């Protein structure tokens, strides 16, 4: 394929990756920002969302859109509730101590993974997209007769992938409004800034924490529901989103939500674009090192505040 169309295709693919990543990482970022805990089980909440989406969709017959929409509602609810319960009965009891939280969430990771394997099986499970039309894309080229529109071989995207991008933008905008305009969002931000003072002013900090933990997990689940019609639900699928979300949250600057979104876009897009220039595995190595070096030379992340 020519360079231009190749780059465009890779960018579009990168945008889809970025959209899912932004949702998942937002979940982690909120938990991280408000509660200051490292949740190793975040990827498993993502996986659970995908699995529940498959389960809901396979229970229902009829048009695939019915199952999909229902999954979009149910999966985050179930996963969020589960996470809130885990927060209430495990994390609150260990006072969110950093080391203990890591051990406990690794334990949670194993529990969720193994339970899913036993109830759901080891196979990769597909979910039918509500709609999925292949859209060939045009490319403009300057030739002998001036600008001409051509339809390069292979340059295309599907309507569903476009939908994922739009859906992610919508959900993140909604989340933004929720955090900045609603009372619940205000409570969360107050807790984030200073949990002790917030408590003194009558904010039910413990309950806010449970809600935040549930919300974070729910966002991962939404990301997963959106992704299953492209990828498949599988009990080991949680590791990648976990690692990538962590990277995004740190690169974005701890607790900075705009930073998280920018980092998600950067990392999702660079994953696509670097693949244009290097052979696949080498591209992954380079992308990984580039991100590591960004952190080495800007440890506070892109939008984090420097301490000095």
């Amino acid at each position: 394929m020519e360079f231009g169309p190749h780059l465009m295709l890779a960018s579009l693919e990168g945008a889809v990756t970025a959209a899912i990543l932004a949702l998942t990482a937002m979940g982690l970022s909120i938990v991280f920002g408000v509660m200051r805990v490292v949740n190793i089980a975040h990827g498993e909440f993502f996986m659970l969302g995908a699995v529940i989406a498959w389960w809901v969709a396979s229970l229902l017959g009829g048009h695939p859109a019915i199952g999909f929409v229902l999954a979009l509602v149910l999966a985050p609810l179930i996963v969020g509730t589960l996470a809130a319960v885990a927060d209430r009965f495990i994390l609150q009891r260990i006072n969110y101590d950093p080391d203990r939280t890591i051990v406990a969430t690794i334990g949670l990771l194993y529990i969720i993974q193994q339970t899913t394997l036993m109830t759901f099986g080891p196979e990769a499970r597909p979910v039918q997209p509500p709609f999925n039309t292949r859209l060939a894309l045009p490319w403009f080229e300057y030739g002998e007769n001036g600008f001409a529109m051509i339809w390069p071989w292979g340059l295309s995207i599907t309507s569903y992938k476009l939908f994922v991008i739009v859906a992610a933008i919508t959900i993140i905008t909604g989340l933004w409004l929720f955090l900045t305009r609603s009372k619940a969002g205000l409570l969360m931000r107050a807790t984030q800034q200073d949990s002790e003072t917030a408590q003194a002013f009558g904010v039910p900090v413990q309950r806010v924490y449970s809600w935040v933990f549930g919300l974070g997990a729910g966002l991962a689940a939404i990301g997963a529901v959106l992704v299953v019609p492209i990828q498949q639900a599988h009990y080991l699928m949680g590791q990648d989103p976990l690692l990538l979300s962590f990277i995004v949250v740190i690169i974005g600057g701890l607790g900075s939500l705009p930073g998280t979104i920018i980092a998600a876009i950067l990392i999702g897009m660079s994953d696509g674009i670097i693949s244009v220039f290097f052979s696949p595995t080498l591209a992954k190595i380079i992308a990984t090192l580039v991100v590591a070096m960004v952190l080495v030379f800007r440890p506070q992340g892109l939008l984090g505040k420097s301490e000095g």
Partner: protein
Amino acid sequence: MGKINTSKFTRRGVLKSIGAGAGVVGASAVAPGLTGFAQAQSSAPIRLGFQVHRTGIGAAYGRWYDRTTQAAVKRINDMGGINGRPVEIITEDDGTDPKRGAEVVEKFATLYNCDIAFGTLFSHVVYGSAPRAGELKLPYFVVSEGHHVASGKLNRYTLQPGITDVKSQVQAMAPFVSDNLGKKITMIYPDFAFGHDHRDFFTAAIEAQGGTVVESIAIPPTETSFTKYFPRIPRETEVIYHVMVGPAVLTFVKELGEFFGPNRPEIFGFIDSLEAVDINSPGLEFLENTYFWEGHPRNAQADQTSYDKVYRAAVGVDDNGASLDDPKDFSTYSHMFGCWETLNIIKAGMEAADYQGPADRTKLIEAVEAMSDMPHSDDHPQGAKRFNGKTHQTFGHQYISKVSNGKLVVEHTTSIEDGLYEDEVDYTTQSF
């Protein structure tokens, strides 16, 4: 050290006795001349350690390896066991992890006192476990299709008698691909040793046929989206050769379809990509009229043999290759026959060696090494095999199927000779 001396002694003895088609004449304290089922010296069960991928990335395969193994052992026991003794399977999960694999082999040998270990699929687990099996002098029968055994990298205690290795499979495919599909090939494979084997062996094989590999695209193993790599496929490509493993394969095939749209080159893939997956899953419509290598045809064919029928019923698989209990639960049909056949070979080997206990392990290996042609039968439902005792590797027929109306229909069956290659090792020269 005494053990080693004895086993050298018996090896010569066994070779002689097998050559004469008689029972065992050995230096060990086994009563000579007694073969058959009834006169067993002990009624204690023969214990086979089954190393299974129950968790980890190989779990989808492991579940079906388990079912096949249970079915094969039930059949063996129903027929009177081995040397008059029942067979007991000791199952341990290796987590599809080479480190745990070695530990499991050790557990079989020293804790459970298993007679042999068997059943491993993923080649990194084989690699991790085989050294331990060799040190513990535990015969280790793998069902992995890797080239590791025949390449000479393992040891005399490791054998692969039940499934053809990847080098042979790939080599047997090349003539069909170049004669029927095209000469300019783009390969897409995981950036794993397994993928590199495909790349190296197929490139060599297709060049021998006058074809060329115009591009090879190695996909990093952690990848979950593939479209961005497809522009690397050169326009001149006549055939796409794909072999992917792991949970992301469905995405891979789907995105390949979305990339090409209506104008696609010929596509030839290894069914490894879609083992345990319904070929009629949403998004796979694109595979209609593409070709697959199959180790063992998943769909019951028009000319289905009675052997396949018996085997299918015993394992509990329907005519589409799915579980009889759940028509949506698809098997790993192209690989799991290896467990069935390997167990039958172990049985035949133990009977030939008049295997009585761990002291006879080397005799068992020699007995298997002495095997050669195995006929298409209930014991070998996938097809006839030719075992090479020197390389510890078996060679069999391969199938090329075309997807027609959502079914895999066999178009071509390769001969055993198509897959033969020169020996790279002679394990029989190694001491035990």
